[in-house]
């Protein structure tokens, strides 16, 4: 992927960030140090940023946030580079179809409506993401799964116990399970998602069930690491999820 920007060669084996010139390694930082505003704070910020791996730096703003906290905005330059050719990414690839296409696709390939159960589990009370994907209305002009002819949707809402989810999956003979989780600093989302996956395994419903996690800071890697089939992050629209469910389940159906 080596390329020229203007007449400057960008070396993928020695890539660095771009401020206003190629290979300048410019980075913008902002952070708080828990020490009182003053000369010492300023020096401490410089040492801190140098320790992060930056050599030249400019503290462009230092502000007193009271109670012994100081806020900094810093522009710094790094010499560090990375070799992009050695980086591997995990990602799902599937074609995003329109609602009509997905409905047709399911009709042709599977021949019956797919049952989708959705929930926000345990302590998590946020339903915005789940509703954006499932509700008729959808998100950003992209209709939710409820609007599709070939999905039967059971939206269980928020703070649903894992046990309830498993019961619902069994009861409705669900094809796909959609779990929405907010990432918390205390890593509650990991506990919740792990618990659910364990229960699905124990109850013997994991096999054949397409398990999907969504949330603003959910990544594909995280989802797979926790045993789920896929993870969708922020900006995901319903048609992506719908297409993913349709294609993956039809592939699985062909295999068996």
């Amino acid at each position: 992927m080596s390329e020229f920007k203007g007449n400057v060669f960008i070396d993928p084996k020695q890539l660095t960030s771009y401020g206003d010139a190629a290979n300048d390694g410019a980075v913008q930082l902002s952070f708080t140090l828990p020490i009182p505003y003053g000369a010492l704070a300023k020096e401490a910020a410089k040492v801190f940023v140098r320790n992060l791996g930056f050599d030249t730096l400019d503290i462009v703003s230092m502000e007193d946030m009271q109670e012994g906290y100081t806020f900094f905005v810093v522009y710094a330059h790094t010499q560090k580079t990375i070799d992009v050719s050695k980086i591997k990414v995990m990602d799902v690839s599937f074609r995003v179809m329109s609602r009509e296409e997905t409905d047709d696709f399911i009709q042709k390939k599977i021949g019956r409506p797919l049952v989708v159960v959705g929930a926000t589990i345990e302590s998590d009370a946020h339903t915005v993401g789940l509703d954006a994907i499932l509700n008729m209305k959808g998100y950003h002009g992209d209709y939710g799964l409820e609007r599709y002819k070939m999905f039967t949707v059971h939206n269980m809402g928020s703070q649903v116990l894992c046990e309830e989810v498993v019961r619902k999956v069994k009861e409705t003979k669900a094809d796909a399970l959609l779990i929405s989780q907010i990432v918390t600093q205390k890593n509650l989302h990991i506990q919740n998602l792990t618990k659910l996956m364990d229960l699905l395994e124990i109850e013997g419903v994991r096999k054949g069930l397409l398990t999907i996690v969504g949330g603003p800071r959910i990544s594909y890697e995280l989802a797979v690491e926790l045993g789920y089939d896929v993870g969708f992050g922020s900006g995901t629209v319903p048609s992506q999820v719908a297409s993913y469910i349709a294609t993956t389940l039809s592939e699985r159906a062909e295999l068996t």
Partner: protein
Amino acid sequence: MARLSITLSRDDVSEAKKTAKAIVDDVFHFITKHTTDTIERTVLRYFGVDGVDAGEAPLPNVVVDHLKKKGVLDTGSAYWISNACVATGKDPQTVAEAVGANALDLTAIPSQPLETVYRFAQEKAVEALDRVESVRKTRDELLVQLRDNPKPYKYVIVATGNIYEDVSQAKAASEQGADVIAVIRSTAQSLLDYVPYGPTTEGFGGTYATQENFRIMRQALDEIAAEQKRYIRLTNYASGLCMPEIAMMASWEGLDFLLNDSMYGILFRDINMKRTFVDQYFSRLIVALSGITINTGEDNYLTTSDAIEKAYAVTASQLINEAFAKKAGMKEAYMGLGHAFEIDPAIENGFLYELAHALLARELFPNATLKYMPPTKFMTGNVFKGYAMNTLFNLASVFTGQDIQLLGMLTEAIHTPYLQDRYLAILNANYIFNNARLLGYELEVKKGGFIERRAQEVLSQALTLLKHTQKVGLMNAIQEAQFADISRSQDGGKGLSGVHRKSEGYYNPVLSELERRLGIEVAL
């Protein structure tokens, strides 16, 4: 000097208010005949019952559960605890502790002369509510003595889970210029059918609301207020399954704002509607006597639905919240009716819609203390764009004369705010509010222009919804998913088992004393 205003159909305004009142009056046929577990626990708390038993269960819960098990809660907890006090000569706390230690059966104590029991209970109620009024007086005096802040009040949230760390963050925010500190609750506390006890240092996404935590934060804010010579308001949540108990704690510990909505718990937390309606009335009586300002949760209608399409749901809910608050003797100035800046930023002239909606609220509730909520739904990880959106939000607020501004955080949708996020939010609000302070007094809205027509349109839509709601009744309307597209059944949701029809001998001196002091005529 006149603030920015728009012209609305007067007939529609008076019709909307009349309809909302009729809707609420109808629900009161149910409310006045029922009590709940948390109302009975509130009475015990006002009588001085506090603390936990050996198994960490709050004593008010222990006593109420005991009375439920004996099948006598429909007479009211006040009677049973007072009867025991009169018989034993002990105070309510000692009696409750004995119940907690399984050493006392309240229903096995011989009935004392009713007059003596009632006199004891009435004295306890009077004492408790005198304390409520004295706390109110302290606040009123401080507001005169110290400087109150110009509106919109800058409202920020702390949520570390540790009350002592919250204090440190709240102090920093107050010194930076915040006027209101809200301690956000631990996730799902609204679904707990008890209030945790004592100071707490661990929570999930927030800090438990406990009476001790209220006291700790109040004390810290009072210290800052004294230093800064301006009053700092404290906010918590009287919502969920313990609305009146939290209101009670707030009334004794000097809280200023409480999030309290007549329908939020039903729709967005799946709490049973009967439970919510009964609880909200009692909690609002307490709030009314305390001089606490409620903050209602209409912003939630816009996070689940489209902000333009469903703007009328906000207006209809505001009208219902206002009508419920009036029934509880609340004055308009203490009604923090809510709305939000949640229109998709990609929409052309979205800002005009926002102004229209904000002005509609202002015009419809000229004396209310309006609570304006920041963009959340369309906030992304791009903190720079988010900061720009919050700037527009602040401009809309100062321009249209809003009262409480929950400051938007540039890291909304990413994580709970960093210290610096809050600092930057206050910086933004200080800049915009100061820079555009009199903008709304200098400019006028074009007569018959887009903004005025849009506001009228939303009002008309709200009126249609209210008319229908009046026809079928509020409980049925909720069942029909008329609000927020969410359907809740009358006997579904959490907390129904805690609703009890009052028996003929039901006695609640706290309720009657609250109603008496607030001058509420109760038609039975």
